[in-house]
Every structure is written in C-alpha cells, then in structure tokens.
C-alpha cells in the first residue's frame, strides 16, 4: 500500500445539485419486476427514489449550479481559483474536456488549470488527491473540484441489474491552501483486470457507435440492453469490494496509527445498501457512523460521497469531524482518504 500524505490543505466547502425530476422506484420498476420481486429488490439496494436529469441537462450543468452557489455563498472571488478539475464519466463531449467549458462558463481566469478525470465511484477521492497535489504549488491557493455523473442516461430501463439503482447529481468542492490544518492521508489503487465488470462497451473508439451497438438485445436473465448501455456485473463487483476494501481501510488506519474509535464518520461510495451494510458489518462500524444517501438519491456514481456528506450536513455543525472517505468500483479503481473536516461549509442540497 502506497500512503500519500498531504499538508496545508483543507476542504473549505461542498455544494451539491440534483435534477428536480424524481422517479419513484416502486412505480418505475413495476414494468419489469413482479410485485414481491420489486419490493425485495428495492429493500435490498435501499433505493426508493432517484433524481433523474432530463435529456437537456448534463452533468456539467449540475456541477455549474453547485459551483456557482458555492462560490457565491463563500464569497470567493473567481480570480482566486487556480484550478478546476472535473471528474465524470458522463462529459458533455468526447472532446473538448468539459473542464475547459466550465472554466469559461464559471468566469474563471484564463490562467486556471482545467482538465477532466475519467473515473466513477472512486473519483471523489482521486480528484481530491489531485487537487491537494496542485495546491502544493504555492502559486495556487484555491481550486474547484467538480464531481458528478448522470449515469441514469446510460442505463437501459429494461436491464433489471441496474435500472433501479442510478441517480444523477453534480457537486462542487472548494479546496484551499491553509497552513493551519491537520494532515490528510490517502491510498489510491487499481485493478484493471475487472474492467469488464462495469462497462459501457460501445460508442467510444474500441467499439465505435453503429446500428449494431445501438441495437437492444436480450442478455443474461432476460435483461435487455444495447452495447451503448451500462453493463454491471453486481456479484463480481461485490467480490472485488469485499476482497479489497476492508483491508484498504484497515491498512490506512494502521499506517497512520489511527484508532477506529477516533473516526466520527465513514463515507462510503453509495454502491447499494446491501453492499455498504455488509462492509460496515465486516469492519464493525456502527450504523450511526456511516450515513447513507441511497434512499432518496440512489447510487450517484462519482458524486455519491460528497452527496452523502451534504445529506449528513447536520453532523458537521458542531466542530471538527474526523472522517474516512472510501470510493470503490468501476475500473476497478478505489481510494480511501483520512481527513479532518474543520470549518467546512456544507450547503443544503439544491435542485435544478
């Protein structure tokens, strides 16, 4: 395990924006599940409703709203922002990088470093580590990390393995240099042998878009999707998660001489309730220490950790919070971060 250490950086604020359109799973799922099966599935994944972006709303629009609100509420001069990093797997275009579009739209200076990172479930932790590294340059004092996805657009409504799971959200996190902060520790890992377990196979350059990739076919267990829809092998991902994540979290805490009891809150990627409850049981984390946002928002891919932080904002009102953030999934890619939230402004979740 490679331990990364960051000093003199802090998360100053988090803002989240979700589409105002809400889908109730009990109604949405009725077309492809029978009654009892639908109830069992909803109870197991823990997703009762999801916010879904209409076709004319992109991830960047949700992140733009979140970022604008955050900069305004924290009274940050846009000229102070030295970098804007956009983490998503649902960009506006194949090219250019959406971060460049957002730099201009947000009115950030031309000296702003802007680029995209193509990661999903682990994206918030990876994104923070990249931004923390940039802030080590003394010339950058503030940076925006924009993280979000509109994964619902990629899912076939006839694919029962994923059609009730994914919601959409965009988030903005303001990170700043601050010499008076505690150290942040992080591990980042990858296992590309699992790349086929969560994939949109068609529509990019390995398998270019064609009538064949767009054709909806019946795959395993009567699930219907095209090669340009998301394919998810839940059991494979579960295997990966229970193999890697508990030892990653324990490894980070051991390497930093941190006692489990010191951790106020654990923020897991919101894969699904069954998986998170299992992880928590395995790690003996009490239920009050791992907030969930699945019930009202579903699995929002890269946005799920900041969204869960925002949904638990009351917990941050009474001073410093020592937290573990753990993102894991598509890639496979995973990252765990140990950090203190001290004076972080977490705004109420906004709809768009």
């Amino acid at each position, binding site marked *: 395990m490679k331990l990364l250490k960051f000093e003199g950086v802090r998360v100053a604020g988090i803002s989240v924006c979700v589409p105002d359109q809400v889908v109730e799973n009990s109604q949405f799922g009725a077309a492809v599940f029978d009654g009892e099966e639908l109830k*069992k*599935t909803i109870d*197991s994944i823990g997703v009762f409703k999801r916010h879904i972006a209409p076709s004319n709303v992109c991830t960047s629009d949700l992140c733009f709203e979140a970022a604008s609100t955050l900069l305004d509420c924290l009274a940050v001069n846009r000229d102070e922002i030295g970098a804007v990093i956009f983490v998503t797997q649902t960009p506006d275009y194949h090219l250019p990088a959406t971060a460049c579009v957002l730099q201009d739209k947000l009115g950030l200076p031309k000296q702003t470093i802007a680029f995209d990172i193509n990661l999903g479930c682990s994206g918030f932790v990876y994104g923070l580590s990249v931004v923390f590294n940039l802030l080590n340059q003394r010339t950058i004092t503030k940076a925006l990390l924009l993280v979000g996805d509109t994964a619902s657009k990629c899912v076939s409504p006839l694919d*029962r*393995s994923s059609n009730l799971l994914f919601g959409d959200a965009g988030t903005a996190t303001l990170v700043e240099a601050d010499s008076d902060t505690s150290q942040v520790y992080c591990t980042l890992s990858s296992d590309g042998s699992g790349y086929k377990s969560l994939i949109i196979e068609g529509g990019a350059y390995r398998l270019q878009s064609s009538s064949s990739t767009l054709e909806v076919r019946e795959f395993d*267990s009567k699930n219907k999707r095209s090669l340009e829809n998301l394919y998810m*092998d*839940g*059991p*494979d991902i*579960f*295997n990966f998660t*229970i*193999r890697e994540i508990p030892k990653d979290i324990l490894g980070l805490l051991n390497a930093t001489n941190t006692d489990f009891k010191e951790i106020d809150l654990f923020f897991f990627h919101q894969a699904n309730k*069954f*998986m998170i409850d*299992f992880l928590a*049981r*395995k790690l003996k984390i009490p239920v009050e220490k791992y907030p969930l946002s699945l019930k009202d928002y579903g699995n929002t891919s890269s946005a799920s950790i900041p969204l869960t932080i925002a949904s638990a904002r009351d917990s941050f009102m009474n001073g410093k919070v020592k937290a573990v953030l753990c993102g894991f999934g598509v890639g496979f890619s995973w990252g765990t971060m140990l950090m203190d939230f001290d004076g972080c402004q977490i705004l109420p979740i906004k709809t768009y």
Partner: protein
Amino acid sequence: MKKSVFFTELKDALMLEDDSINESTQVRLTSLSTLGVIAFIDENFNKQVKAADLREVKIIDDLINLIGPENLVA
C-alpha cells in the same frame, strides 16, 4: 456449522420461500441472491467464493462443494 443451521440460514440468503431445503434442492441464483450467498459464505465460513463459480451452481450440493463439505457437521 451444523447442517440444519446451514440450511435455515442459506434459505434466507437465497431468498427462498420453500419451507425446507436439502442437498438436492435446485438453485436459481439471481443477481441479488448471488450477493446474499457470497455474503453468507464470507461471514460464516470466512471464505470468498467467486461469482463465476456461483454461476455454475445448479443444486444446494454444488454450493456445499464450494464451501467444502468438511465445514458442515450433521
């Protein structure tokens, strides 16, 4: 683990409605019940079975072979 306890708890993991199950009971694993079985085996036998192996399971006895029959007592 006692075999009787195993059958009772496995029934829950498999989300089966049947009153009782035995070695020859047929198994049709869905995505969700596969997660349940992986979790059940991990928690009770400290063993990680691969999703790919579970796809080959037809009856309860196949599952017992994955766990290792020596881990169950009468």
